[in-house]
């Protein structure tokens, strides 16, 4: 957004509570790599020029990438500036920080969707023997006491951490709710290449069937790695990870799990096959069939005949529970009536109800790729154009 504003000669500042790439520096585990290949992080005026465009950036590489970009575009970043409140004024906004107060006509909220780890309320009923940790606190397996681990959540975070802990010698059980299964590689190309090329990532927010649902689809079961391996449930069970249903209740020192695991895996397998079908149809239309490997389908998710419905939490079998149950944004500093009853910011494709206020970087803000680094270019362009019209007093409700 800073690049877009600079292009249009609009005076602005970028407030950062820590340093550039703060959450990448402080809120990620060490082994994490981006889930998208390096070629795909196409920021406005800046892309990948290295030798391995199909590789996946490590955390230090991601941090360096963002730091370099901030320098290249001369973003006017004020680091170590924490916003404590944003209020509406007669002609704009008052932004209070620990480094002074700003008056401005427009505000762009780019604080992300992953500020506060969501921990289910039933955690309060866990016996004291169980250690718990959120994915935000997790940095590496050495933090986890020897013994069994229950990873709750089987999206990108849960499956990756389950894999890492199992490989580090912990017997891991993964509690599986609704999830999105995709292969890392299909027909010889990265799944992100396919989704980018065939238009899946460009699906628009005002054209999907159910936008609320689309915005809450769990992250894809993907990992960035040098061997491009899948991290789906079949891969995990191959390593010895045990699958169990959605955590449903904790009572009398026991954790109870839903009996719906089979259906959730069936839903995920069918959904994956619909994506592969869309890819196959597109590949045939583009006459790519000679250039890429033949189409095929992956094995259905394998489950044991009767997955357990209960785990005893005082037997020592489980020592640690790791919550990979998703995140929510923190809008506690937003002192304005712009949240709905579920605490979600009311907006139309990033144009917040309050004139001159914009939102960026949440899932399916405007397109399926909105939560990716690669989604920023399109979203910021449209929203910056709207912002300019707001400054000119000509803005309409929709971007």
């Amino acid at each position: 957004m800073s690049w877009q504003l600079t292009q249009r000669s609009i005076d602005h500042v970028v407030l950062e509570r820590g340093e550039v790439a703060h959450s990448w520096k402080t809120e990620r585990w060490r082994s994490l790599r981006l889930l998208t290949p390096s070629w795909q992080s196409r920021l406005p005026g800046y892309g990948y020029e290295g030798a391995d465009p199909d590789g996946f950036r490590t955390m230090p590489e991601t941090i360096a990438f963002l730091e370099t970009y901030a320098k290249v575009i001369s973003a006017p970043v004020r680091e170590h500036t924490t916003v404590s409140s944003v209020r509406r004024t007669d002609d704009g906004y008052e932004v209070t920080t620990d480094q002074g107060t700003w008056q401005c006509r427009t505000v762009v909220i780019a604080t992300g969707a992953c500020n506060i780890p969501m921990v289910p309320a039933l955690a309060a009923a866990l016996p004291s023997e169980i250690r718990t940790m959120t994915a935000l606190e997790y940095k590496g397996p050495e933090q986890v006491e020897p013994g069994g681990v229950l990873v709750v959540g089987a999206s990108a975070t849960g499956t990756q951490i389950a894999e890492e802990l199992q490989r580090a010698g912990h017997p891991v059980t993964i509690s599986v709710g609704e999830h999105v299964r995709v292969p890392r590689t299909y027909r010889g190309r990265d799944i992100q290449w396919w989704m980018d090329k065939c238009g899946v990532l460009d699906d628009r927010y005002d054209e999907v069937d159910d936008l609320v649902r689309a915005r809450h689809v769990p992250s894809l079961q993907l990992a960035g790695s040098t061997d491009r391996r899948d991290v789906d449930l079949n891969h995990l069970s191959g390593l010895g990870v045990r699958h169990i249903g959605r955590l449903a209740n904790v009572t009398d020192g026991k954790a109870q799990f839903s009996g719906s695991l089979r259906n959730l895996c069936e839903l995920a397998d069918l959904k994956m096959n619909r994506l592969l079908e869309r890819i196959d149809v597109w590949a045939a239309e583009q006459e790519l069939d000679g250039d890429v490997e033949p189409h095929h389908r992956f094995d259905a998710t394998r489950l044991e005949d009767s997955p357990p419905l209960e785990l005893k939490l005082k037997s020592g079998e489980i020592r640690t529970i790791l919550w990979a149950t998703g995140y929510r944004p923190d809008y506690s500093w937003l002192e304005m009536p712009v949240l709905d009853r579920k605490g979600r910011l009311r907006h139309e494709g990033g144009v917040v109800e309050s004139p001159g206020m914009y939102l960026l970087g949440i899932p399916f803000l405007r397109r399926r790729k909105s939560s990716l680094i690669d989604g920023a270019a399109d979203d910021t362009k449209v929203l910056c154009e709207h912002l300019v019209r707001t400054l000119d007093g000509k803005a309409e409700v929709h971007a």
Partner: protein
Amino acid sequence: MPETKSVDNGVNVEAILEARKALTAQPEGAKFVWRAQCEWVRGTHSRSSVEKFYGLGDEQKHRTRYTFDSDHPEIFASEDNGATPVELLMAGLAGCITAGIATVAQNRNIQLHSVKATLEGPMDLQGILGIDTDVRNGFDNIKVTYEIKADATLDEIKAIVAQSQKRSAVYDAVTNPTNVTVEVRKV
């Protein structure tokens, strides 16, 4: 893809989508309370009935009162005046998922011609008879087999059935724990 108008599974999807929209705006109206009554007849025979329920912010009523006899079979030295309660539970599960199948299919413009479910629920009676405390009272598992004739591919049909389970109240009630409170009054 068949024409929208030619698909008729007898489900008024427009009305359901309207209700969904209305209840999104008025979440209080979505709070329902289901009620049933049960009276002991004799032996293991009892008769349950349903008629009134609460929803859309008001008392509601079925078109008529429905009754269900439950009893145990003769091999348990009972008179077999009705279904066993666990069979009624299976009927509830199948009824719920099947209603969902018709609705989801209608919403996806898929014509159904026949939908048949067969349910099996193995159960070790050592549990309810207190012979072995390691054996639970309830079903070991429940297996539902659907045979469906519809104008759709196998994967489309599977997706309808999977989506129906995902949205089914009874499926949720059976697969997840529910707090049950039983109060007793002497009359």
